[in-house]
């Protein structure tokens, strides 16, 4: 598990939400300056005593260089208190990711969400009384990163990574079984040829995913999901905001089955706006079993629940001409305030100035009429403001930056499996490399032994 040890050198793409014109990769730790040297950059004189900058070309490989402004912050005169380098270059996320992966190959470690701040705190650059702020930032950044990662579910690279973890774990179980259950001489677990074949396939798959350029860029934009009871006017507002006809607008509850997404450019930021009709509490009408097996309903509901969970902001619509229902209050109350924006929609139908609206904590809801266009400018402003306040995720995918190291471990495992045909000569070394690769790819902290044992016992009949 990676935790804020302060002895090693960490790296992260540290620009904000999305591809800005400028991208920043930041390093902190004792090897920061040495790593720059490995990129072929000679530091300006005096960089060890005072912050300074230089223009440079970063050497990524024999054929590729990248123009960048390099900012040198010698310890202790830096944000973290360690030697820090910032590389300012073109704001292209795949490029920034490649740069950070290269630095990881050279020995840096991918920073965990909030780790630069944690370091600054641990090294005394931030006052101890600021601990609440630091912890809150770490938590928020971790959550934002998790949400962005979960949204990246359809990303090709991510898929390939999950597939590889699954196959490596299955292979590892067979190799481990061959070590731990040697007395079962009637059970055959895996042959060296199978190990080599499987690993060749996994490596090819990972390499293909790496070079396909599949990009999780949209998942890194802030996601705003429209939610509310059926008929609250979500689709109308969605269409009005994106000014197109992509969503089917209808007054029949639950007609928008899928989650519709569109990018929307506000003044200062690009966001992904999502509309899903089922994003709200289960209604009575939908719940009265008479309707028969409501499978599409369940699917839509699950998709919507996911979208709400993974959203950075939930735009809650309440039709102004209706009263707040208890289920609506409950559902809405479960969304943290920091991630909630309230809108009173359909004000063209007449405002219901009932007592409950005034008494409820939702009285500051923004009045909007998608039909007439009232309040839309204010809504865009409000969204831009709220998005601006959000803590962004770690750009790129934290879990994918260790791929080159994982592939190297898989190659070593394959080579170890090769020499003998009669049985693995060194299963313990193959297992060591497979475990290393798995940990790098999965990026999780759960000890793997229980999963391995579960697989062994479900697949092989062993035990006396």
């Amino acid at each position, binding site marked *: *598990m990676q935790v804020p*040890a302060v002895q090693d050198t960490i790296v992260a793409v540290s620009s904000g939400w999305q591809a800005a014109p400028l991208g920043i990769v930041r390093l902190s730790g004792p090897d920061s300056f040495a790593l720059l040297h490995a990129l072929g950059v000679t530091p300006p004189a005096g960089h060890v005593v005072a912050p300074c900058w230089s223009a440079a070309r970063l050497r990524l490989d024999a054929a590729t260089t990248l123009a960048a402004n390099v900012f040198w912050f010698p310890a202790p005169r830096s944000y973290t208190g360690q030697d820090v380098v910032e590389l300012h270059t073109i704001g292209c996320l795949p490029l920034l990711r490649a740069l950070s992966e290269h630095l990881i190959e050279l020995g840096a470690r991918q920073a965990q969400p909030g780790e630069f701040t*944690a370091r600054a705190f641990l090294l005394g650059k931030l006052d101890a009384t600021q601990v609440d702020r630091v*912890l809150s930032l770490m*938590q928020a950044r971790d959550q934002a990163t998790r949400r962005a990662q979960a949204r990246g579910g359809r990303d090709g690279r991510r898929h390939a990574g999950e597939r590889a973890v699954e196959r490596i774990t299955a292979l590892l179980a067979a190799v481990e079984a061959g070590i731990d259950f040697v007395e079962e001489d009637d059970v055959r677990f895996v042959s060296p040829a199978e190990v080599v074949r499987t690993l060749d396939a996994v490596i090819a798959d990972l390499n293909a995913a790496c070079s396909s350029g599949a990009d999780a860029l949209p998942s890194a934009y802030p996601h705003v999901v429209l939610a509310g009871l059926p008929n609250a006017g979500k689709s109308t507002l969605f269409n009005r905001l994106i000014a197109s006809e992509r969503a089917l607008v209808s007054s029949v509850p639950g007609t928008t089955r899928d989650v519709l997404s569109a990018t929307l450019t506000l003044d200062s930021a690009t966001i992904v706006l999502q509309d899903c009709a089922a994003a709200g509490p289960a209604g009575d009408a939908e719940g009265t079993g008479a309707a028969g097996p409501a499978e599409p309903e369940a699917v839509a509901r699950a998709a919507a629940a996911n979208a709400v969970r993974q959203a950075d902001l939930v735009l809650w619509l309440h039709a102004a001409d209706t009263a707040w229902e208890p289920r609506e209050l409950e559902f809405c109350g479960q969304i943290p305030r920091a991630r909630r924006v309230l809108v009173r929609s359909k004000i063209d139908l007449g405002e219901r100035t009932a007592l409950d609206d005034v008494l409820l904590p939702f009285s500051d809801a923004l009045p909007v009429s998608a039909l007439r266009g009232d309040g839309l400018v204010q809504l865009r402003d409000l969204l831009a403001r709220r998005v601006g306040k959000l803590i962004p995720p770690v750009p790129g995918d934290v879990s994918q930056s260790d791929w080159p190291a994982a592939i190297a471990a898989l190659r070593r495992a394959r080579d170890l499996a090769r020499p003998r045909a009669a049985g693995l000569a060194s299963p*313990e070394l193959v297992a060591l490399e497979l475990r290393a690769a798995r940990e790098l790819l999965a990026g999780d902290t759960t000890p793997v032994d229980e999963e391995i044992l579960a697989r062994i016992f479900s697949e092989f009949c062993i*035990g006396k």
Partner: protein
Amino acid sequence: MTQISCDVLAIGGGHAGAEAAWAAANLGARTILVTHDRAAIGRMSCNPAVGGLGKGQIVREIDALGGLMGLVTDEAGIQFRMLNRRKGPAVWAPRAQADSRLYVAVLRRYLENCPNLTIIEAGVDEIRAEPATDPAAESRVTGVLLNDGRRIAATAVVVASGTFLRGLMHTGAEQSAGGRIGEPAAARLSDSLRGLGLTLGRLKTGTPPRVARDSVDFSRLREQPGDPDPAPFSFMTTTITQPQVCCWLTSTNPRIHELLRANLHRAPLYTGQIESVGPRYCPSIETKIVRFPEKERHQIFLEPEGRDSDRIYLNGVSTSVPRDVQEQMVHLVDGLERARIVQWGYAIEYDFVPPEQIDATLMTKRVRGLFLAGQINGTSGYEEAAGQGVVAGINAARFVAERPPVTIRRDQGYIGVMIDDLVTRGVTEPYRMFTSRAEHRMHLRYDNADRRLTPLGREIGLVRDERWRRFEQQRIRFEELMAVLGRVRSEGRSLLEWLRQPDETGERFLDRFPELRPFWQARDVWGRALVAAKYEGYIERQQRAIARFRELEDCALSPETDYDAIPQLRHEARERWKAIRPRSVGQAARVSGIQPTDVSMLIVYLSAQDRLGGPPVISS
């Protein structure tokens, strides 16, 4: 009536209780071992074998610390095999068949001649305690009440009750209370533990039928010999002197599977008569045929219970089906057509104390001075039990002497891996050791158990002069050999480089370099040099991993850490940590459901506490 008193009292004469009593007595504590029957000390309830993958390493570790199991096995072993010899030495593991009667006799001899140790034959009805003065615990042990009415005062009590806690045996519909065939259960101890505030759970295990040796047709069986040059378990044993025997192999067949299938409605595991969870790695034969219906045969190992014993253990067909089905089943096995069953297979259910309730010292969190070891902690196996016994015995003695407890880390031994798994993650089935549980497997080897643990055993006081002298000698010889191998060159390469080649044993250099011969004869030393040469890069890599691991492990956490006070911590992390109360940041990170950011936040919080001058919660 005179009140008996002692420092450490161990309940149970099994492998955990015996090691605990031995360790405590050898550390100078006045020790009493309470067992139902002196003649049953170290009795092997299940198969007459010691060691195996992971388990064999545990026995070596027990020995390296100054425990008994390796010594006793070497003296009572009648067939030794080094498993995995064709694979890398990191996964070699010794295994031995023991003469079960001899095993009991040897163990008993060690214990009966042990200074400071008294054996009392009785059952224990109650563990007595008084309210604790220490705010972290609720009460403190004061002694026990025996089932004959006697009271014994004790400063520390080690409970090693095995399967005896409300043990209930099943063979078909027959049920009988007991801890083992013909031995009574500990009926009242469970209530006493519950009365002390501990929560109890229930587990299940089982054992196969035994047959009479003279009724087996060995001509139809495949022989399974031991190693021609048996390697001892103990670092103190130079040669195995017991004459060696062989085991035999046969298997089940489709007719047997048909028979069992037809009688599943009478199998307690399938009728609902047994509800407790049994071990996945030790399935009964009826479970095997249900779970893997496509398999046409399952191996059966015939293991003699002793050199002169008339009993043969049928390893592989553990069962609790009714007697008539067992009888038919045995008679359908090749070679057992006329076999006479001398003990029926049975399943046994017993109480255990879910191990989140102890810490890595094996002392309960609620009751000071109360230690638990062996199956009561949800483990299975003689070796796992014995490994815990040593740790419990050491810590009970140190508790009495008011010295700080000793824990074994995950990078120091399989014993450490096991105890950390138990106290950090709990169990869902009887816990057994596998090498796949150890993340530092390259380091936790059979050959280097002494280098990993004998210095610790010496520091604790359990390693006597003779063992220490031998350890030092070995160390010096090894260093000499490594120096020679680095210096002597052949065809432009050092011998050390040659030894790195796969399959190179170095034997071919003996004629040319006579200075190697004395080392070649000292097999241990030569073997270690081979390991050092072949694994060089990997050992370094593992050492780096261990160093990283140690950073978090050495970050101590107070059990009184107030997790509610950490702002912004996820609810799940808070609840998990409150339930486990980890003793180091490393352990906190291993608790299930914990994510990296949780640990990072914990570290930041602890550092803030430090700087704000709060109670010293972190040290490194």
